């Protein structure tokens, strides 16, 4: 038999990944260079090598932590978005569906509004409160959806919606007793941003982030099987309940880490997997890696826009991602509508 002619079909995936892999370092250099203190991006490697100039200090203590945080948060959100879309077998699913974002927002609201003197503690304890809130909300969703050791995916979705609504209502209740200052910091937290980036903060999120990356990447094959349906995934050798448990737990870990570090950065989790499917295709073995690269790049670019476009003022990153992401999402919907009509 001749070597298969379709063997080359994976070429489009590889060339897309290669292109993204080349583009991402460029985005990093540009993001690190541009800002209130301009550093020519092409000079950055030399500056890092020589370690002497003032620019080196700016890069290492200000720009790199921030760019790194943007990359990490974008990658975590995009990867869990891709996994959630696969789990729910719906390209319009969002990583927030399992309640983690809403739970994190509630955790943050409880901390900001109910813990007196939060001002001093905020830097360390607020992310922790958000992280715990996110995980608890997902746990609640999980237990609502499971019965007799099995979890119905549709119930999971509905439980997620219920928990999202409940968390929103509780935040609303809390807001009625918030001071103006508390309200302001909660609002800014909700809109998301990378301005709080420090090396210490990055080190704190590294363990859960790495665990989530490692675990979620391993789900590519079961996600591919799930494309055909849950029964079919089982027929193809997927241990369904174990897979769902891993997918939800790891996505909650990823989103919880991202939201704790940067607040509510919307749309990246939804848009990045989509973009990769448009550019290359839907095979999860490539989609997961591609979403990580795209999510990281989009997030860094959004942050670049957020801190340069209205300089010296700074826009919340969540505003930029939503401003750009929402029209893209609407375009996608229109495109789907046309596709369905054709």
């Amino acid at each position, binding site marked *: *038999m001749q*070597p*298969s*002619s*379709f*063997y080359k*079909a994976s070429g489009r995936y590889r060339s897309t990944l290669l292109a993204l892999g080349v583009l991402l370092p460029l985005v990093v250099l540009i993001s690190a260079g541009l800002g209130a203190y301009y550093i020519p991006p092409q000079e950055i490697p030399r500056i890092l090598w020589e370690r002497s100039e003032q620019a080196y200090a700016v890069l290492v203590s200000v720009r790199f932590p921030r760019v790194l945080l943007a990359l990490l948060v974008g990658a975590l959100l995009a990867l869990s978005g891709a996994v959630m879309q696969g789990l729910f*077998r*719906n*390209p319009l699913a969002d990583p927030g569906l399992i309640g983690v974002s809403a739970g994190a927002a509630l955790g943050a609201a409880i901390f900001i509004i109910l813990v007196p003197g939060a001002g001093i503690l905020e830097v360390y304890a607020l992310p922790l409160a958000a992280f715990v809130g996110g995980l608890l909300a997902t746990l609640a969703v999980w237990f609502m959806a499971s019965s007799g050791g099995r979890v119905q995916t549709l119930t999971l979705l509905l439980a997620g919606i219920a928990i999202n609504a409940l968390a929103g209502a509780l935040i609303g209740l809390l807001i009625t007793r918030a001071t103006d200052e508390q309200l302001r910091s909660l609002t800014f937290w909700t809109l998301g941003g990378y301005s709080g980036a420090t090396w210490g903060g990055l080190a704190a999120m590294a363990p859960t982030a790495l665990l989530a990356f490692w675990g979620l990447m391993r789900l590519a*094959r079961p996600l*591919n*099987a799930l*494309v*055909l*349906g849950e*029964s*079919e995934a*089982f*027929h*193809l*050798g*997927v*241990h*369904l309940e174990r897979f769902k448990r891993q997918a939800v737990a790891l996505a909650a870990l990823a989103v919880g880490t991202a939201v704790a570090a940067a607040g509510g950065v919307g749309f990246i989790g939804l848009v990045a997997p989509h973009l990769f*499917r448009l550019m290359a*295709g*839907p*095979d999860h073995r490539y989609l997961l890696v591609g979403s990580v690269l795209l999510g990281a790049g989009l997030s860094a670019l959004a942050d670049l826009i957020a801190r340069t476009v209205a300089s010296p003022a700074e826009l919340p990153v969540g505003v930029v991602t939503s401003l750009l992401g929402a029209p893209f999402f609407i375009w996608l919907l229109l495109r789907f509508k046309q596709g369905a009509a054709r």
Partner: protein
Amino acid sequence: MLEARSLSYAVGGKTLLENISFRLEAGQMLSIIGPNGAGKSTLLRLLSGEVQPDAGQIELLGRPLSSYRPLELALERAVLTQRREINFPFDAYEVAFLGRLPHLERRAENPQDHRVTEHALSQTGALQFATRRYQTLSGGEQSRVDLARVLAQEPRLLLLDEPTNHLDPKHQVEVLALCRRLARAGWGVLTVLHDLNLAGLFSDRILLLHQGRVEALGQPAEVLQPARLQAVYGLPFIQTQHPSGRPWVMPLAEADAVVSRSEEPLAAGRVSL
């Protein structure tokens, strides 16, 4: 190869299957027939390991089915289900390649995986639209891609739920002839079929299910008896012979008689036609 002993299964107090026993040997093609709601698809779900019987045992290759891990099962048996819906823009080739997944659990893909996939596609006549988006294919084309996916899994046992669904007569015959060839090559093939004559033409044995019980099990000529079919389907049948010597059955009904009984309100309008 596959043996079911006294299987029973109930959901919410309603018995769907009761005391089902049969054997399928390697090299054999067994068809399950029966009216709507007889329990055919449910039986297939039990045999695939997807749901556990309430009573009775299933053995696959001499080992209890319940002792297999999902991946072990996927390397021995493949299942073609009826409804399938893909929400992502996979092309037909990628869908067929999904059949290789169980083999790729512990190693990277290699050219052999693609040769197997391509061969499977050509066996089901789906190669010419392999590069097209699965979602844009017709129902019959999708069915052939799905069958190719199941073949690409290279199992020893095939469980097929109405593999001829959505297919035109030519492709129905081709698919069943393919199943028969695979059985001759040593696979075990179990199919759920609605068309009694296709079942009669291609199967070694037929299992007739009725209200969750085995009504008859044997060679086509033994099972496709007019009296038995009338009892099960509630319609008179006549039997004649196919040129191959196999039985050929037909429901004995007049179109107008059936229409006027089952579609009373419309009948008046149709008579004048």
